[in-house]
């Protein structure tokens, strides 16, 4: 069963994973599928490099039952993956790619930027803007190299933060609560209501997300929606009675939404227009 599809910035490749987020797969425009890694947890929270050459992810390593996490880049040209951070039992933040196209990760609580050109990292903020979850709060590094910690809803835990491509907004969830959008300077909180796994359109104008119900053991329903970045024009994209669509993400041109259908394990795409 395949889940979590994300299209490459140039729109030519589709990356996805399987149940348990084990490994990463790439499908090209001829529908040929290649497994680029079988590493545990590599398929959760991964990001495409801006030059389409690879994917940064946080795989897990096991020593008996002891789990270590670290950042690694998986290249599509056949080169061996590169571990860009130490692997630690205490690494709890996901790596990513900033709006300036630099890979970032946290090590011992310190932000590191990784240059894909020099293949080296240093203790600094990445170029452009980056956002990530740290200690249940949203951290944003700015173009000026400052790190800003945002606690949008006091005392509540944030998860699944995603920075808009223009770096101006963050969509995120509150554990046990709603889906929100907030400006990356910490102002302008917008409550979108119930929703999960928000993902931005390439032009930063829309967010797609899933709205699910469950019985505590299995999903009982799921549909995909879009909403404008200002919280208006909430639109139901799917109206399936026999599918359970999850993990929506926009195509590179913003016209389609990719999603996983967990009733049969397939990856599908649908027009980003409203369901008929």
């Amino acid at each position: 069963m395949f889940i979590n599809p994300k299209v490459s910035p140039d729109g030519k490749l589709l990356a996805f994973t399987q149940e348990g987020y084990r490994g990463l797969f790439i499908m090209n425009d001829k529908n040929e599928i290649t497994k680029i890694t079988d590493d545990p947890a590599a398929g959760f929270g991964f990001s495409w490099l801006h030059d389409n050459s690879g994917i940064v992810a946080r795989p897990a390593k096991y020593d008996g039952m002891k789990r270590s996490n670290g950042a690694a880049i998986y290249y599509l040209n056949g080169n061996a993956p590169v571990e860009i951070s130490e692997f630690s039992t205490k690494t709890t933040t996901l790596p990513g790619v900033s709006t300036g196209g630099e890979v970032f990760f946290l090590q011992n609580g310190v932000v590191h930027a990784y240059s894909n050109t020099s293949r080296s990292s240093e203790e600094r903020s990445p170029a452009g803007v980056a956002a990530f979850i740290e200690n249940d709060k949203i951290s944003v590094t700015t173009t000026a190299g400052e790190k800003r910690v945002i606690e949008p809803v006091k005392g509540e835990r944030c998860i699944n933060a995603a920075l808009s491509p223009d770096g101006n907004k963050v969509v995120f969830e509150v554990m046990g609560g709603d889906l929100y959008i907030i400006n990356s300077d910490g102002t302008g909180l917008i409550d979108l209501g119930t929703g999960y796994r928000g993902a931005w359109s390439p032009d930063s104008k829309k967010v797609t997300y899933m709205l699910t119900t469950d019985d505590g053991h299995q999903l009982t329903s799921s549909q995909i929606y879009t909403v404008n970045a200002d919280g208006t024009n909430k639109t139901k994209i799917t109206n399936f009675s026999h599918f359970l669509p999850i993990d929506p993400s926009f195509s590179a041109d913003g016209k389609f939404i990719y999603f996983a259908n967990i009733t049969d394990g397939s990856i599908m795409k649908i027009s980003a227009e409203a369901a008929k």
Partner: protein
Amino acid sequence: MKKILLLAALFLTVQLQAQITGLSGWNIVIDPGHSADENMGIYNYPEAQKSLYVGRHLRAFLQDSTDIDTVYMTRTDSIQIVSLSQRTDYANSLGAAWFHSLHSDAGGASANTTLLLWGQYASGAEKIPNGGKAMSDIMIGNLTKGMRTTTVRGSIGDCSFYGCTSGGPYLWVNRMSNMPSELSEAGFHTNPKQNQLNMNYEWKRLEAKTFWWSIIKFKGQQRPYPGIMAGIVTDSESGLPINGAVVTVNGRTYTTDTYQSLFHKYSTDSTLLRNGFYYFERVPGGIQSISVSAPGYDTYNSTVAMSDTFFTFKDVAMVNSMPPYVATVLPAVGDSLYPGINNLQITFSRPMDTASVNNALVFAPTVGNPQKSWSANERTLVINTSGFQFATNYTLTILATAKDKSNHPLDGNGDGVGGDPYVMNFSTRVPDQVPPALVARYPQANEQVIEKRPVINLTFNEPLKTSTLGGKIFFTNTSTGANVQTLTKYYPGTDFASVNLFTREDLVPGTQYLIKIEPGIEDMSGNAIQEAIEIPFTMGSIGQGTTYTIDNFDGGIGNWWVPQQSGSTVGILTDTTNIYLDGVILNHGTGSAKSMKLTYGWDLLATQWLIREYYPATTPTFPIQNTYLETMLFGDGSGNKFRFCVNDGGPGGHEVSEWKTIDWYGWKLVRWDLANDPVGSWIGNGVLESPLSIDSYQLTLTPGKKNIGTLYFDDLQYTVYGPVDVQDELSGVPGAYGLSQNFPNPFNPSTVIKYAIPVSGNVEISVYNALGQKVKTLVDGFKEAGNYQITFEAGDLPSGLYLYELRSGVHYEVKKMLLMK
């Protein structure tokens, strides 16, 4: 000596508080299943609350007593609504090392098993990363012992448990977490005893301890000395837990929950809830004294040897110091009874010394020495009234010499002090002089029946004298005068009696039959039916249908959920609502070996009543056209209602038949003509849309009717009269003839064949066996040009290869299909 004791105490204190090492560099996500007040258990205590507190305790044990790095919780309060995706996304984003999901289960009132479900693929292999199975194998033993249940389903892969056919793991938390994981089901929150214990704060510590110890063992560390004594204080006679009992162990006291301290949160009835649970931690090893006191009970004193390896369970049965009294009598005081038909019944507040009671009974006027019998653990005395006179006022005195099993003398006047007699007055009625009446029947007079072997139901309004039934009921073919072969069964009830005639030969279509009840059948008082009753009916000529079994219950009732398992079931008394396999009340018309018995109780304080007796299998599917969904239903004459529910392909996914009032007693065939009968109202759109499969039997209370009853179900089936041929949804005129490959193929027992006719004309579709012999004609007649599909029912054919052939005009086409039974 004092020094030695002091050192021992110090050592013990250090031992009890020592931090366990070996968990450094490891962390865990604890996932209290469900949210807020979801999955409400019996007596208004939800699974979601129990799992939250167990999670909090487990987190505290791990953080306070081990060197674990971190303990995370997906849900931390009773307000958050945490979705499944958030639970696993939270754990996955943290890169946590372990995921443990806490749950309890739902089912019948008597079910209370434990279960650990680890992630498993459909291939049978354990989920990667491994570990969940090994942890579950440890947890299941500790959890089962800790919950004190001997019934255990085990440590099972979730795909094996739920029956995945592909992919997997089955449970979201196992499938979508990227670390080793498992899910625990710690007993049933629908079990009355379990859920009253679940309400107790320390009971949830007990459950959490079993997981804590399991994790320590899994990590290869030594479990510390437990030092926990716990148990349940009960009434020695009733077995009921005692509220407010004060337990003293090692100088500390624990008072069992009371209405004021706890149960008022869940009930307005101050006497309903009780658990009798007590719990002590940090109890030193060796022999400990225990003392228990409670108002109205003798104080209990004993000693207990502490276990070095597990909880020390010590249950205490308290002896009631109150004298026995008469709790209920039948007939009620001042009421009357029929001598020889109604017995006199006296129920005492506790088990009695039966000899002392039997010798203390004095009737005025005297009745000789009536036959006596005891039941209900010697609390209930039944006195046979055969020797009593009609139309007489009696006084019964139970002398103060009557005693309970602890030699407490009878408290006849109920003032709490023993040693006085009980006196009751009752009368006997005038003799019954009204003959029995036939109040329900199947078939109705002049009805047209269509089943080949109908079960005749004759429901009377009172029990009958069986010796008067012989030679009084006849079932004949009107045109030939011949008797129809039947098996006759008599079913007596409290308020009703039924005579069922199970037909043992196929009736002839288009033929008149007659049921005749001759005069002379008597009730228990000897009143005889005076006039003959005739019920003529006709065997319909619409064709001999083919019947397909859905479930005849001969293989058991394991495919059916108990009523409480369905979230749609509301307004029931859960203690009295359940299903059972029965081998006595059977549909003898089909030679049935088993039936399903359903006992129900409706909560009269509720505002909605529904039992959804759910059948989770979605096969077989059945057509709509010319099809009857049928079941044999042994009615209780209660006036409550029954209906079928089917899964369908339309909005809402379910449709129901209209409610049918159960006004009969005994067996009767209940049927739903799917194409022609009205569709009832539930959660569908009121239109039957293929594919159909059975969802459930459904029952509801008719306000004002009996709220307690028993029904039996047998031979759930559907019968198809003739082939089913419908025009396909794909309208328009096809450009060419077409005969599609049947689907599914292979099939059992039905399959769909689509065909296209470009020109209006006669069409014949026939089925041939491998020898070329025609076995069925599915279509034979004029058809407008169009696309069609027909369902081929092959339940009466043997497995094998078959050919189906389309002929229309000059067109001829044939295809193969495989029937595999």
